[in-house]
């Protein structure tokens, strides 16, 4: 069973670009909801601009990105830059999906706080979020 959180945590989960693999992120959204979080689901075909605008309007605590088509190194810098431009440094930025191990330090250097790969259990990412909020 997933441990639940009492704290109000609002998480934006989304995909960027054309990548159509949305099954995983939908599951993550469901599991975060079960863990007691308020999950803003933006789905597919978002741009760095549309993601950041939603994060601002909705005052989210966390942004979760899903990458399954090898687009992570292309879009991550664009999203991080857009977040910086808008002063969103206090939002926890996490990513999940399919990546080679070699890319994880690269993504972290680019500004992702934590990278989760396929095969991660719910408790792991829930506990990470609860313990690492930036505000």
């Amino acid at each position, binding site marked *: 069973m997933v441990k639940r959180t009492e704290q109000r945590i609002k998480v934006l989960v989304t995909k960027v670009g054309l990548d159509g*693999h949305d099954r995983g992120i939908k*599951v993550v959204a469901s599991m975060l909801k079960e863990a007691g979080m308020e999950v803003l689901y933006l789905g597919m075909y978002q741009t760095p601009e549309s993601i950041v605008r939603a994060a601002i309007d909705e005052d989210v605590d966390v942004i979760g990105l899903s990458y399954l*088509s090898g*687009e992570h190194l292309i879009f991550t810098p664009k999203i991080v830059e857009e977040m910086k431009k808008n002063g969103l440094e206090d939002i926890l930025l996490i990513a999940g999906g399919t*990546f080679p*191990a070699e890319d994880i330090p690269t993504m972290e250097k680019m500004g992702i706080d934590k990278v989760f790969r396929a095969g991660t*259990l719910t408790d792991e990412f829930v506990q990470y979020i609860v313990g690492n909020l930036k505000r």
Partner: protein
Amino acid sequence: MSQTNEAKTEKTHEGDWDAYIKAYYEKPVSFKSWSGYDVKEIYTPDDRSVEDYGKNISDAGTYPFTRGIHANMFRGRLWTKREVVGIGSPADTHARLKYLAEHGGSGLNTIADVTYEMGLDADHPWAVNEVGLTGVNITSIRDMEALTKDIPLDKVSWSLITASTAASVTMAQYVAVAESGGYNLAGLRGSIQNDPIHFRYCGFRPACPLDLSIKLGSDVMEYCTKRLPKWYYTTVNMYDLREQGINASQEVAFGFCIAMCYIDELIRRGLDIDEFAPRFTFYVSCHIDIFEEVAKIRAARRMWARLVKEKYGAKDPKSMQFRFAVHTAGCSLIPQQPLNNIVRVAYEALAAVLGGVQSLHCCSYDEPMCLPTEKAHLQALRTQQILAYETGVTNVADPLGGSYYVENLTDRIEDESLKIMKQVEELGGMEEAIRTEWLDRQFESEAVKRQKELDNGDKLVVGVNIFNTEQEKTTPLGVQRVSEQSAKKQVEDVKELKRSRDKDKLKDAIKRLRDDAGEGKNVIPAMVDTTKAFGTTGELLGTVREVFGYSYDPMETIESPFNW
């Protein structure tokens, strides 16, 4: 459950033998099949619900083909060892095809990238970042020429994986290149995925509106029936459906329901079931539960034979034969302790071969990390070759046939699948189940169920919830990258082509395509001509989309350049 927890703490420090002792007494934790069916300790003749061998099972090569579509199965011909290839530009992909062919691959198999499947040209603002990332990018006839360069199209069998409405363009591009190369279309062998309906559930909904999916999907089928008699023109993709998290019975049921959408349309167009059913193929998943997967394949064969014969009145036994390719289950592979994936794939491939597969793609072990590296690709091919040449599993048709357990499981999956198909029928048919998003809800609840099974330890996966070790820092056989240069060149080439082509010739071709689409004609001939006039993927599809009342651009970003 308690065994699971004990096994989780894999203490290995010196002097502590508890883990070993506990491991000695370990038992399985679940007595369910992967799909969740309860399984008994042993199966006996009493469990054979199917009594009538002749009617329900029968020898391989005879109706209802439960045991295989050929009497001698692999003795006649081994399955096609067809590894999926698709990376960057057509030239990059061509190089990998050549490499695999040199190492004993026996079928060409190329997969389109996400931009192509969405129906976007490489120079589309949404495409430029993602050209070639997940497959080969084909925007114009030049790309198809580069992909097929020096390959004798009349001698090879080519599997073209384009699933969305863009499959119509792929077919047109392939035909255009073949005609320009002087090949006789009637001699071309191969297949095209062409299953836009299922692709709505793989993130390509903007490119696959339901009515256009049926229209363009069926146009390809109708065209091929008349012009490419040896071509398999749809591969109903049950694999992708399974990857959404559904179980084995749902995989068969949903796949058949989608197939029936196309069959009904072709019959509506006046074609006879025996004219086209022999050209239908299926793309099946093989997951990790070996017996269940074999049973699923056997059940699917029996169900298809009966469906086509009893519901659609087919007379030709070829119509009733369930032909299928297998893609080992990508979603069963994990990035943790990744070399273990080789073992998983081997078991899954074994199930496919025991099930009597016609064509097989083994996932490379690096599937959950990146596109296959050359070494990983070769290793996956070697898995197939070991099965084919070392294990002896090819000697006998349907070696598991007659197993009390497998026959029971075959019946079970058939029953469950038929129940689901009946449910869909009661909802008003598959189109209605899609429109009302009933199908979406099935996928969603099943996918969540799968995650919970892992979270709760009801299903064990080594490296996920049992026998975990620290995360690896590197990928064992290296990482495949898509060349940025190739992608950039792809975009530049398309821009140059659009500048330099003969505009009047293109205009005439687009006009004909528009007219044909407007008059309800089959659009493939006009698409072939437009391709020869250097019309591009986005332009062909966009033109047809507009005629059908959709935005020219599925992403609604650009306007048609042909607004005259």
